[in-house]
């Protein structure tokens, strides 16, 4: 034991000695499958420079940077979720640096690639899709769902999974994309009908591909590389892009007071260079390069977001709208869907049963009851205007709120009200649907 302690002390001294060499330290939420090839390629391109990778999940990485700001030891933050970078930027934890790169357009699929202020840079893009397990689909004799609307159908009841938007920045963007693409009320209605078909809302975003890969669930709403990389690892899964989708970049940013800012910029420039972009096509990584030229070397059938026929319905994503109601949308989804999953599922199944029973019975009374039940499931406690009202959203963004804005109510109070609203509506909807189903 003592010897190992001495050994580790020795090892520690050696590593701190190595720190005098040119070391770039990056904190990342990316898996080793992604970081290892980049580390190897970067160190080969810049002999004498070492890339030290510290892995943390996005939340832990942000908290760690916030807590250690007084004596920062990290040069770069490297992660998917743009919202994590927004948080860091607003707290002044990101440095604005000048990065030289060529051939990278301003936008990808309607979403700006780089932060307009130059605080962080997009280096790869990701879209959202529906991932499905082919064995599961075959065993359960299900058609393949290709659009978000398909997932609303009764035949998918209990076969869908997704992560909660409050847990995964990428899922948040999927939710927000649909809200912007279909409009507030229609968008939420779609989410509720899809959620009624879910068998689980996972806590980690990686929980969804895990569930689809293992066959625990048939369909998962995922960020594309989860599906592409799962397929590349040999799992019997496929990925489809629905026509309403958003393309969002995965980012890298140099931290304020970085110990090795020069090295950090060197790494960002490498990521954006043609050689760096090529690494993204590695089968275990499978993210979409932001440099259109990199697609020349892409394998066949590799999705190209710069091509005409890719997701023709991609919407112009409004970053400001998304930012203004960010936590509100998360909280609303959790209160109405995640925490009340059982109630919602019961209501949705009841409506689906009633509709099946009266598919062609022509019973007007039943049709009226079903319509009423549907309206109750779809009802929202707030409208689109309220969702953007600063005096309302302020209750959810305490740390970043403008002190001058009058805020109405506390988050706990508002959530309690929504919760009552949801429970009562779902219960009532189920009752009406059951009544309709009982009618002859």
């Amino acid at each position, binding site marked *: 034991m003592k010897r190992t302690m001495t050994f580790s002390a020795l090892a520690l001294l050696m590593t701190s000695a190595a720190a005098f060499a040119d070391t770039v330290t990056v904190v990342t939420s990316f*898996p080793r499958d992604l970081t290892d090839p980049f580390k190897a390629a970067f160190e080969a391109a810049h002999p004498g420079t070492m890339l030290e990778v510290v892995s943390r999940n996005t939340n832990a990485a942000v*908290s760690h940077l916030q807590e250690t700001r007084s004596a920062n030891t990290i040069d770069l933050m490297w992660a998917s979720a743009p919202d994590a970078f927004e948080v860091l930027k607003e707290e002044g934890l990101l440095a604005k640096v000048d990065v030289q790169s060529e051939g990278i357009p301003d936008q990808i699929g309607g979403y700006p690639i780089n932060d307009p202020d130059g605080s962080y840079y997009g280096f790869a893009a990701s879209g959202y899709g529906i991932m499905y397990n082919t064995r599961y689909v075959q065993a359960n004799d299900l058609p393949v769902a290709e659009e978000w609307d398909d997932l609303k159908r009764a035949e998918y009841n209990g076969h869908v999974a997704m992560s909660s938007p409050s847990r995964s920045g990428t899922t948040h963007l999927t939710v927000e994309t649909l809200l912007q693409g279909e409009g507030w009320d229609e968008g939420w209605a779609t989410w509720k009908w899809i959620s009624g078909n879910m068998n689980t809302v996972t806590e980690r975003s990686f929980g969804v591909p895990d569930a689809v890969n293992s066959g625990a669930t048939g369909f998962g709403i995922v960020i594309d590389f989860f599906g592409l990389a799962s397929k590349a690892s040999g799992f019997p*899964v496929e990925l489809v892009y629905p026509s309403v989708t958003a393309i969002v970049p995965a980012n890298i940013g140099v931290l304020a007071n970085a110990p090795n800012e020069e090295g950090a910029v060197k790494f960002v420039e490498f990521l954006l260079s043609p050689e760096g972009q090529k690494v993204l096509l590695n089968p275990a990584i499978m993210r979409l390069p932001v440099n259109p030229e990199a697609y020349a070397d892409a394998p066949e059938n590799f999705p190209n977001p710069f091509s005409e026929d890719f997701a023709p319905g991609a919407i112009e994503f409004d970053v400001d709208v998304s930012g203004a109601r960010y936590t509100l949308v998360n909280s609303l989804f959790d209160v109405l869907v995640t925490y009340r999953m059982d109630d919602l599922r019961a209501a949705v199944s009841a409506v689906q049963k009633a509709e099946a029973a009266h598919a062609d019975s022509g019973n007007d009374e039943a049709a009226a009851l079903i319509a009423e039940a549907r309206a109750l499931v779809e009802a929202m406690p707030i409208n689109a205007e309220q969702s953007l009202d600063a005096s309302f959203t302020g209750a959810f963004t305490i740390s970043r709120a403008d002190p001058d804005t009058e805020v109405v109510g506390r*988050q706990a109070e508002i959530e*309690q009200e929504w*919760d009552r609203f949801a429970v009562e509506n779902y219960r009532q909807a189920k009752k009406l649907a059951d009544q309709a189903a009982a009618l002859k």
Partner: protein
Amino acid sequence: MADTTTPSRGFTLFPRLSGAAVAGILIAIFLMAFLVLPVAQVIYVAFLDARTGVFTLQNFQDFFNTTLFRESFANSFYVSAMSVVLATLIALPLAYITTRFNFAGTAAIQALGIIPLIMPPFVGAVAMSLLFGRNGSINLLLNQHFGFRIPFMEGLNGVILVQSIHYFPFILINLSASLRNIDRSMEEAAQNLGSHGIRMFRRIVFPLAMPGYLAGAALVFIKVFDDLGTPLLLNVNNMLAPQAYLRITGVGINDPMGYVISFILVAFSVFSLWASFLFMRGKDYATVQKGGGGLSRRDLKPREKWLAWGVILLILAMVLSPHIGLLLLAFGTIWSFSPLPDGFTLQHFGTIFTQSSQYVWNTLIYAGSAAVIDVILGTAIAYIVIRTGLPGRKWLDYMATAALAVPGVVLGIGYLRMFHGIQLPFGLGQMSSFWGIIIVALAVRRLPYALRACMAALQQVSLSLEEAAESLGASRSSTIRRIVVPLMTGGILAGFVTSFATAAVELSATIMLVGRSSDAPLAYGIYLYMQSPAGRGPGAALGILAVVIVALGSYLSQRIIERERARQAMTADRP
């Protein structure tokens, strides 16, 4: 240690701090610095108005006004109570059969009984759902051949099942240690008076083993109540601990309710502990041992032997099922919607082979040091609480046990807040990124396990043995060293094993504190792999490695206890 010839008993005119008081103060300082203050730095926001920053109790009022939180509280309580019941049903036969009868493979069974505690993060839930999930092996087979499914893993049922399989070793270990400490003469007296079988177990044996059982049951109850990992991995969030976690860890979320719930979890844990004290109060569980003793073991009749083996194998198959799943995952190629993997391979072990030695050494050093700290602190606190009259001594116990209720991420953030910016001498760098701080965090988080085991062990040591030693002229410190600690050995080792085994796979605080990849323990390595589809196999392989290492450690300590007992029994039996 003090000189053994100085009589430390007797009254002095000058108020002088006894050794126990000094130890008590040092422990209190340790707990203040590494548990209370860091946590307080994080959860004080529970008492602040979120906008103005003034002191308020409004948040607590909100908590009790919210239907969701009240339901979560009820769910947590229900799940904890049911888990204790199920865990008892699993642990009792194992403990009874292995301590009461001459049974081949006792040490192996006791060591296997610890394995469920070593559930590497993430992998366990995947393994469980591949076996028991809606489309897991068992349900796929059932559905294929009989056309129905059993909802093992749905909702709260799943949490109760997984929690009791995971935490029953707390009861098993403490109960076994207690059963071994029961004086044989009690049993003989009962037999002389005509009692035997179930009646004797119910009236004599089990009540005498009560401290151990209660220590284990209280741990299971509090741990399940405070555990957030299992419900989250099963995607159940209508419970209190996951609610706290979900509200603390979202990016950019600053909801005070998360900290309110954390505070309530801590308060409730201390309350349950206090309730178990009340239950034990006024009862004397100590037995006068003759330096060995334990229940007499008898041989089983052939039919009983078959029955015993049947029961044990059934229980082992159930409690080891997650690890069987893990094994299949580690050796399997692709495993998707089928009862078994498509093929088998050694490749995953090849993948981890090159990188794992660093992880293994780090894990052994971290978990081992943490467990040593835990048993030292645990023994000292147990002695101070039970044997001394120091004012406020119970608070040491409450403080240490409250660590159970502190989410690892809260402790991690607290440490960063408290120790970042403190430069250590000798070029060790920042205190918050120094690997030693990981050991401290693990020790603090696992201290309650060791403490409960030590408390139970000490409650069974009769005070008269110490008095006898002291009246023969032994000093207080040599009495502790020569009489008390040896008699507590079983309990101390039980504490060491539980602390070590659980520290080896802890992740939530570690992930905050690991400064560089060369300092990372196994659990962190598993986390790295489990972030990608291709990493599932290697992650499981690394999980298997963790389980094997910890199981070997437990088995060896089990052997040491057995040998020690045999030696003691021999000396005791000598005329």
